[in-house]
């Protein structure tokens, strides 16, 4: 049985060997569609172990009780979130998980280094690292989802600040609640940019009503001309903005 220990901060980390990176996703993050290009594939294969070596996957999460919720806002203890799109996502939930995950700071150093070697390398490293953090988030969600389902509790898809009308400013609350600077190294700049760049923060709803949690859906996003949009189902936006994914 799951014991919902509210407000406790849980650390999480993942051995990078557990990641299974999808080449088609890496290509998509690069903007390479339809066709395979042998030279680009070869360069990606060359850089894959370099990126994996720099990965340091870790994060923090906490579970919070929802004290009250309506279609516009929720209150959980001293935290109030106003966002219609998030509330739509959290429909029927009585608790939320707040999480922050990162691929680590060494990825950003690697990006700087590769940018000086060639912008192609930078693009490839960025795409691989994006796939790594997305894959990590999926594995983390899956672990948690399985645990909760044993107690007939179900998870809603991940929902991040920046998505819909869920303002980026809530990242400040998330960072502060999870104490991420000291717990896992995720910091926020004054312009609300997460560092390390390959980091994701967000909210996951917990509900007693059975729901099928579908990640990786872009259908809600209005930016239909996005070159990173998934064909079916679609997903939005550039790699580092993908922390916003539902």
């Amino acid at each position: 049985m799951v014991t919902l220990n509210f407000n406790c901060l849980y650390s999480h980390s993942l051995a990078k060997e557990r990641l299974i990176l999808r080449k088609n996703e890496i290509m998509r993050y690069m903007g390479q569609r339809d066709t395979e290009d042998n030279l680009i594939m070869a360069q990606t294969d060359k850089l894959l172990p370099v990126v994996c070596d720099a990965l340091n996957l870790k994060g923090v999460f906490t579970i919070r009780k929802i004290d009250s919720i309506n279609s516009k806002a929720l209150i959980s203890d001293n935290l109030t979130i106003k966002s219609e799109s998030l509330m739509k996502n959290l429909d029927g939930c009585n608790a939320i998980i707040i999480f922050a995950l990162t691929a680590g700071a060494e990825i950003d150093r690697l990006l700087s280094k590769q940018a000086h070697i060639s912008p192609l390398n930078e693009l490839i490293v960025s795409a691989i690292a994006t796939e790594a953090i997305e894959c990590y988030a999926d594995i983390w969600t899956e672990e948690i989802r399985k645990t909760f389902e044993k107690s007939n509790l179900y998870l809603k898809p991940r929902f991040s600040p920046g998505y819909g009308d869920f303002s980026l400013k809530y990242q400040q609350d998330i960072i502060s609640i999870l104490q991420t600077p000291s717990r896992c190294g995720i910091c926020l700049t004054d312009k609300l940019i997460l560092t390390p760049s390959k980091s994701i923060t967000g909210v996951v709803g917990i509900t007693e009503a059975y729901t099928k949690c579908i990640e990786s859906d872009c259908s809600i996003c209005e930016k239909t001309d996005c070159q990173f949009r998934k064909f079916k189902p679609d997903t939005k936006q550039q790699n580092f903005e993908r922390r916003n994914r539902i």
Partner: protein
Amino acid sequence: MNFLSIIDKKIMFFDGGMGTLLQKKGLKSGELPEKWNIDRPDEITSIHLDYLNSGCNILKTNTFGANGLKFSDTGEYSLEKIIKAGIDNARKAINLSDCSNEHFVALDIGPCGRLLKPLGNMDFDDAVELFAKSIRIGADYGVDLILIETMNDLYETKAAVLAAKENSDVPVFVTNAYDTNQKLMTGASPEAVCACLEGLGVDAIGLNCSFGPEEMKPVIERLCKVSSVPVIVNPNAGLPSFKDGVTTYDISEEKFAQVMGEIADFGVHIMGGCCGTTPAYIKALTDKLNGYVPQKVTRKNLSVISSYTHAVEFGKKPIIIGERINPTGKKLFKEALRNSDIDYILNVGLKQAEAGADVLDVNVGLPEIDECEMMEKVVTSLQAVTDLPLQIDTTSIDAMERAMRIYNGKPMINSVNGKDEIIDAIFPLVKKYGGLVVALTLDENGIPETTDGRVAVAEKIYKKAAEYGIEKKDIIVDTLAMTISTDGNAAKNTLGALETIAKNGGLTSLGVSNISFGLPQREIINSVFFTMALSKGLSGAIINPHSAEMMKAYHGYLALSGLDENCADYIEFAQSVSVSSQLSESKLKNEAPDDVSLKNAIIKGLKDSAYSLSKKLLETMDAIDVINIEIVPALDTVGKGFEEKTVYLPQLLISADAAKSAFDAVKEKISTSGEAKTQKCKIILATVHGDIHDIGKNIVKALMENYGFDVIDLGKDVAPQKIVEEAKKHNVPIVGLSALMTTTVPAMEETVRLIHQELPGTKVIVGGAVLTQEYADTMGADMYAKDAMEAVRYAEKLN
């Protein structure tokens, strides 16, 4: 108070985790715990008292997050009031306590919550000032020591330590938070952390938080092996983990104390706890180690330098110091310095790293440039792209100090010599910032001609260093290689002095290639001299790591002198030598067949072929024709494909890479033939203020350069005023701005407005993931480019 005298007799105990207890008393998550210093002082004092009663000696004030980013200068919860109350609460607890132990109050300083550049957007100097503000208050209200804790970035740690050293006289302790990979989050190994912090004069170092004591053991062992100052261990009671839906804490009080007992045997002197360690944990710990006599703190006498990731030790295996970042005798390098072409300099560094350098010498002195500014730029930029430690090589004391201050690690310093004036300028810097110093054996009377004369200068420098509190281990003597072309005994004298110093336990280095100045086929002399010097005990060689002869001598020497176990490194080196020569032959066959034109090589993204084909064409064609007939049409074909969506971004970039190497051949031809350069107009590119993502800007830059524009890349997070200043200075007709986040679009708008106001004729192109035509119109930009090709096309039209 003398910590060291107590520490050799018994373990000193820190308290445990304040946050854990505050939560139990009702602190809400996300609430600032430091406010309780003022709102609920009795609760804080009572927690301190509980810890004192469980046997601890050092109380951490409740000021972990008390910094200028969270608390303002004035008001009910001003920074000063928060810190003062924090200290008062701890002092009150000590007064109330009836324990007979020695008690100390440590000003607790945690991470500031922002990541420093280049990984984040906080300036190093701003971070120092931020910490200094809190530390000045702590020092004014009389704390006994400063504890800088839970730091997971070495650079931020250095900023906090400098702030502490510059603003207080009390001992400074540092504990870092390591990951399970035994590194800090930003990559530093325990040895690198130790080298840097000992260099800065920290009084005790260690680790805290992250995990429980058992998991900390490997890092503690490594730290104890290298640290010459007392080691501190403040673990968590194991973090709560979410196993099968049940919250579990890893370790009980008894188990905590038992493991800490084992850890004490590693040679630890100061122990306590972090998250989850309640007074019960500290009680169990102090009971367990009551009467325990720790090992004596010993000087480890290691000669080390470090980067932000790793330490390099001198005195075991000879160290290769790459000499190529130096303008002396290099036309292109000088030009790069004059044009602030940092990319060129970084590439020189990256190539040396690839060729096997352990350390990079950095000399950017030219009479006509501001060396201090350039040194800072180059050191900062190099540390963003390579993890090799740097040797700061300058005669400018200002440039030296600036570089030592902003360097992330413990640098190598090039150089001091026997002149009093130089000694008195350099050694105080070494004492303050740490460093391994190259000592040239020359003084006011010049370079002694004899072996004994040079040894005498070295002895004088050692003596003077000791007066400044700098140990012999941090001096590396350069006995000065002088050319044999004018003095047949030059090598003998140099090597004689080197041998004597090495035999007396000193470190030695040489700028090897000077030996052959004025002679033909210099590599022959250089490599033999290098081998001779190695056999006399050379510890560090400043050489060109691209020289095959030098690297052959080096790897051969290591294998022959028992410094290469199983000849493993030699075998790898030998293979790389033979493979690369075979490869280059097959490459020529595979990639440059007669029927592939340069144009096609670029379209297909064949980088090596593009270079060799370009070179071949330049034998019979003018540079301008190679560009206009082959390179530009190739780029146009690919660009058109991109616009028509038959070519995608990676393919566009791979062709850009190939075009760049074709241009490299053109540039080489121009630099030797003196043929006039044909360049299009200047363009400034920048990622706007507050934005730290620059991949989009880098892509535009690569394409613009290929199309012949003279790109001035101002980097990321660039203030509007700076962009305008540079645009004025270089008289540029086009500025390209990139923003990737909605939160930084206002900064872009401000930049556009400022450019149009101050430079009405200058056109502004804007782009980035969150931008749209509508946004661009609203802010008054001249052009919205949805991708890099659109930006190029627009610039072409204007040119």
